[in-house]
C-alpha cells in the first residue's frame, strides 16, 4: 500500500469517529452551557422500535407556566421531544402521562429550532421521586382493596 492509499484508508476509517466525536463534543457543550427553560409537556405515542423505550412529548408553549425566549414566536420553537427512560419504568411513566393527573414538565436547552431536554419533572420534582410516590400510592390502594 503506497502512502497516498494509506492516508485515504486511514481517513475513511477515522471518518465515523471524527464525525461522531465532534457531534458528541458539540452536544456536551450545548448541554452544559445553554440557557435553561422550564416547559410544560404532554405525551403522545410512547414507543419506537429503534430507540427502545422513550416518552414522546409535546411542548405546551402557550401554558402560562412555560418559559420561553421573549424574542421568539411559538412557531419558531420545537414542537415535539423524546425522553428516553429505563425499560423497567417506561410503562408506569406512560400510564402516569395517560392518566393526566400529574403535571409533566422539562428543563431544556434551546438551540435554533431544536430542543434538548436536560431533565424531566413530574409535579415539579425529579421524575424518579414522583414515580416512586405514584407506585407506592398504587400499591397502598391495591392493598386496601384486598
Amino acid at each position: 500500500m503506497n502512502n497516498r492509499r494509506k492516508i485515504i484508508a486511514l481517513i475513511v476509517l477515522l471518518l465515523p469517529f471524527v464525525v461522531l466525536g465532534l457531534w458528541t463534543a458539540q452536544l456536551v457543550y450545548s448541554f452544559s452551557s445553554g440557557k435553561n427553560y422550564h416547559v410544560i409537556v404532554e405525551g403522545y405515542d410512547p414507543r419506537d422500535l429503534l430507540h427502545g423505550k422513550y416518552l414522546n412529548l409535546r411542548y405546551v408553549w402557550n401554558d402560562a407556566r412555560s418559559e420561553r425566549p421573549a424574542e421568539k414566536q411559538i412557531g419558531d420553537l420545537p414542537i415535539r421531544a423524546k425522553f428516553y427512560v429505563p425499560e423497567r419504568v417506561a410503562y408506569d411513566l406512560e400510564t402516569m402521562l395517560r392518566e393526566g393527573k400529574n403535571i409533566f414538565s422539562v428543563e431544556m436547552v434551546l438551540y435554533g429550532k431544536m430542543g434538548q431536554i436536560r431533565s424531566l419533572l413530574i409535579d415539579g420534582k425529579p421524575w424518579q421521586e414522583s414515580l416512586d410516590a405514584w407506585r407506592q400510592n398504587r400499591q397502598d390502594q391495591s392493598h386496601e382493596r384486598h
Partner: protein
Amino acid sequence: MSLSRKLQYWVDARLIAQDQRENIIAYEKIRNANRWKHGFGYIGILSILLGIALIIASNWQAIPADLKLGGHFTVNAVLAWLVWQWRDNPDRLPHREGVLFVLWGLTLTLIALIGQIFQLSGETYEAVRLWFWITTPMIVWFAQGRYLTALWAILFTVYVPYDIFFSIIEGIENEAVRVHAGLAIAVLLPPLLWFMGTQKVLRDHRPALGQSLRTLGIIVALGTATFAGAVYYADNTGWMLSPIIPIAIGAFPCIILLLARKSREFDTGQRSMIDLILMATLFACVPFFAFVPFSFMAMIHFIAFWLAACVLFQRGGFDRAVGICIALVTLRLFIGFLELFGSMMMSGFGFILIGLVLIGLVYAARHVKKWMQERGAA
C-alpha cells in the same frame, strides 16, 4: 456422496488418475484438520462476548452516561484498529470482514446511544442517514468479501433512492408529481447501479462490489418494469400527467444506454444486460404514457416483458435466469386466466387454447426457418 466416493467415480470414469485422487484427499485432510478447533474457539469467544453483553445490559441504568459513551467509542476504536492491522493481510481476510461488519453495525448503535444520552428528538431515518453516509467510505474501501459488499450494495439500493425520493416529495401534495418523481428515480437507478458496477476501479480492486452492483441493477430493472404493470389496475387517473413527461423521463436513461451499447468495452453478455435495462426502462414507462383502463393489459405487459427478458438472458448465456423467466410467464398466465375467466373450468379452456397457440407458433417458426434455408440454398 462423500468426497472420497465421488473421486473414485471420477477415477472409474477415467476423468482423473488414481494418484490425483489420493493427492486431493490428502490436501482436503490437511485443510480440514483444524476445523473443529476453530469452531470451538469461535463458540468460546461468542459465549464470552454474549456474557459481557448480558452483564452490561442488566446493569445498563446503573452505568454513568460518560462511561457508556466512552466504552462504546473504545470498542469501536479497537475494532477499527483491528481492521487497520489486517488491511493488507490476505490470510486475515475473513477476520477483517467479520470485524468490519461488527464495526459497521456498532457505529449505528453508537449513534443511537448518543441520541439516548443527550435526549435527542430526531427521527430514525435521520440516524440511519448519518450512519450510512459516514460509514460508506469505510465499507467501500475495506470490504472485499461477497457478503459484506452485497449487504452494503442492497442497503445502498434501498436507502439512497428512498432518501432522494422523500427529499424530493417533501412538501409536494400533488399525487401526479409524486408518482412521476418515483418513476424517474426507478428508471434511473438500474443504469446507475449497473454502470457503477462496471467501472474499472471496481473491476480491478473491488470485483465483489462491482458484481453486487451490477446484479442489483438488473434486479431493480426487472422489478421496476414488472411493478409498473400494476398501473393498469388503477381505479382513478389522478396520478396522470401529460404523456410527454414519462416519455422525457424514459428518454434520458435510454439515450445513455444506447450510447453505452456502442462502446467496445462491453462483451456480448454485458451488451445483453444493457439491452435488458433499456427494455425494462421502456416497459416501466409505457403504462404511464399509454394508459388503458383495462387490467388485462397488466398481463400482456408482464408476459411481453418477461418473454423479451428471457430472450436477452438466453443471448447473454444466463441459463438459470431463462428458467426463472419461463416459470414467471407460466405463473402469470395461470393468474391471468383466473382473472379473465373467473373460474377454474373456463381458465382450463383458456390454457388449452394458449397451449395450442404456442405449439402452433413453434410449428410455424420451424417451417418458416426451413423454407428460408431452402430458398437460401436455391
